[in-house]
């Protein structure tokens, strides 16, 4: 199975920043350092043609270090090709540079990531809560946030 074209180009141009490459079910995932995400995103958009950011989300791997991963699902409209970039984020310093300068659609996705996961984005034009009420405390999608909300007993059902 030949390597995805983007992997080779990224390793060539950002050799110390590519941390891991995973191929699963025909999809390529590249883990890169978070300090370089804006440069790598600009490179992927301009040089490799990934002009469409389908999805940006945060994942909470509670118990591992780094705790969070920010996942960018990209799409190349001309080549109809998908690519995934992941950025590990430590819990103690849960910030990433915003990519809304590269893909404008990241604006609301990053707001949602901040709202539900608590990962803040540097230089974001408008970082405030989007789904939860503005005065909500806590970040609900984190694994240590209870499913029933902060002020109720957990449901004693079969699957907790």
């Amino acid at each position: 199975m030949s390597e995805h074209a983007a992997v080779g180009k990224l390793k060539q141009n950002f050799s110390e920043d590519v941390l891991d490459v995973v191929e699963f079910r025909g999809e390529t995932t590249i883990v890169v350092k978070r300090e370089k995400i804006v440069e790598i995103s600009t490179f992927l958009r301009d040089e490799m043609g990934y002009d469409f950011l389908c999805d940006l989300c945060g994942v909470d791997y509670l118990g591992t270090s780094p705790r969070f991963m920010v996942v960018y699902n990209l799409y190349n409209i001309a080549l109809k090709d998908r690519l995934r970039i992941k950025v590990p984020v430590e819990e103690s310093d849960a910030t990433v540079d915003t990519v809304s300068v590269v893909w404008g659609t990241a604006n609301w996705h990053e707001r949602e990531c901040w709202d539900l996961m608590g990962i803040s984005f540097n230089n974001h034009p408008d970082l405030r809560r989007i789904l939860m009420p503005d005065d909500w405390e806590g970040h609900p999608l984190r694994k240590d946030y209870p499913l029933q909300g902060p002020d109720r007993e957990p449901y004693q059902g079969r699957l907790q």
Partner: protein
Amino acid sequence: MAHNEIMTVNMGPQHPSTHGVLQLILELDGETVVKATPHIGFLHRGVEKLSEHRTYHQTIPLTDRLDYLAPMSNNLGYVLAVEKLLDITDDIPARAKTVRVMMAELTRIKSHLVWLATHALDIGAMTVFIYCFREREAIMDIYEKISGARMTTNYFRVGGLSADLPAGITDDIRSFAKDMPGYIDMYEGLLTGNKIWQKRTMGVGHITAAAAIDIGLTGPALRCSGVDWDLRRDNPYSGYEDYDFEVITRTEGDTFARYKARLDEMRESCKIINQALDKLAPGPILADCPKVCLPPKKDVVNSIEGLIHHFKIITEGFKPEVGEVYVGIEAPKGELGYYIISDGSAQPYRMKIRPPSFVNLQALPQMAEGSLLADVIAVIGTLDIVLGEIDR
């Protein structure tokens, strides 16, 4: 002494024209919109967090309620993603794939009918609303015969369908697909040549192709700005590569173009439904994966393996490998994406839904600012948003 001031007006969240619980803070200079800020989250039900506490099968009903106007599409995206995670995409039987395509296209027509009804009603054409909902009743009757529910169907399963088509349903679907183009011509007769409609929609809510790609617009709204991209043709799923249909694109990029494009998409959907009905052949409806798909009832009652599999799948659920997938499908509103991460257990570790309306709504400020207050209503309608999907 008269002087200009910017007036801040609140629209919503309870408002007949916002198509759900959407709040728009509009800053107006007279009738011209200077700034429009959408506020969402009033329908946030925590679907993503709930799915982390349910097995993969138990999550399917949660997906019904995302875009509640196109429930089968949401189901389809989710089961396709889980099937990719399990690597059983090639084992789905042909009959299941054909029925999935047929239901997905019926769902597209259903969703576009609501879009046309509410969009026209907001602009003032009440008759179109009544006509569209009359056709929608026919589709909902078909839904009810097939899945048991008019709206939240929960019909597809991981590996195929939950139940086979009832007898006689193909005649109902065929007669619907035969009559539908005539009804679409009726709606066109009411609206397309109508001077009022043209004045309210031509040139309104214009967006260029580059701006649309940057803001993440997908679906008919993107295709009307000249970008030729349809996931059914470009990254086909569930057998779409075997169907002959046109991808409707236009270049004007305004509300009138999106209106014409969605009507043409409804016509193309009728064509696909006819092709699917011709392709439909008897066969199994579930993949042959005993650890994933429920066995037929006679096996559960008569054989011990059937009983054990049934028991394990219902109580424990199946456990995919550790890994992650992203599957995007062409839902009626745009690209609906499911990003599922599995940690090897029976519950998804993380399910992120990429709702088309959430991303399309981001384009509202661009499209509405600088135009009149009445155009804001037209833009909300043309973006075809549904808050269930935006807020999840």
